[in-house]
């Protein structure tokens, strides 16, 4: 494209002829995923007694669907999918740190909550009492 020789900032090719078809297709995919997510969420809300494993399973499915939505938004709407492979990896691989820190935050939060629930403000910290020995008047330590 002649624009690209003219403007150094343009780092990838845009094909205007490609049109808006791809965007609309993505829009419908996102809409369908959102409707599925909402219906799953409402199922959890409206069905009163549900076994907890099923609850957890539905939440897991919703999380995966959300990640799929994130993939479509970043790849199509934010054009990351049009970049070269190395650029994509540079952006995506550091995001793996999220796995670590979401895990770390959850662990830390749960530990704090448990400690706070068990906190006893009347508990006194004590050192080990000095063993008493009959007739022993010897003073130990400094100034003896």
């Amino acid at each position: 494209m002649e624009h690209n020789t003219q403007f150094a900032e343009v780092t990838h090719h845009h094909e205007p002829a490609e049109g808006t078809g791809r965007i609309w297709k993505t829009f419908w995919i996102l809409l369908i995923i959102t409707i599925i997510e909402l219906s799953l969420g409402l199922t959890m809300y409206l069905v009163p007694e549900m076994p907890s494993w099923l609850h957890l399973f539905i939440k897991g499915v919703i999380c995966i669907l959300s990640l799929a939505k994130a993939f479509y938004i970043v790849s199509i709407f934010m054009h990351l999918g049009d970049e070269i492979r190395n650029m994509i990896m540079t952006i995506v691989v550091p995001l793996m740190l999220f796995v670590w820190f979401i895990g770390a935050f959850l662990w830390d939060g749960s530990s704090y909550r448990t400690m706070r629930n068990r906190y006893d403000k009347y508990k006194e910290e004590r050192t080990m009492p000095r063993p008493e020995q009959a007739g022993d008047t010897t003073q130990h330590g400094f100034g003896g």
Partner: protein
Amino acid sequence: MIKWLAWTIVGGFAFLGCQAWEWTHLITGAHAVLSNGQLDVIGQTTHVNPWGQHVSLAAATDALQHTPHDVLVKLVGIHNHEVPHEQLAAMTDQQLRGMIDVAELHVRETGPVAFGGFFYGITGFHGFHVFSGVCINIVMLIMTTNNVFERRGHYLMIEKAGLYWHFVDLVWVFVFLCFYLI
């Protein structure tokens, strides 16, 4: 292009309108809760959370006997909109208690206090980002109608504004996941 930018701005305002509506209902909403052995009427704020465990009918009926006058007036007011507030306030406690159907109140305990702070903090920040996105889109709309980009020869500015808008969109996917779905 002008048409779709305009629709995006309309959509942004629609989001902000829904959020304002939701917040108003959460903050001013009246929900019966059991705290300190008596009933109270509260909404969702950063200090209190009315969404705890359901309270048994017996416990709620017992707590009703210890509930002070002003709260009784509020409790009646939740379901009864015909009698004006002044008239309710003039009634005796016994009369007010007679007007309350405890089962209908769906009394709960108070829930975790931290919820309000997280909810309003995070959705509020998101709403602020949407608002700034709408402002940016309005600027883009004005620049487009003035043919600024046509004269410049490229639409990079629109690309950048779009990138911001979709970033805010992406954040909402996760905010929605955490607060509304799970």
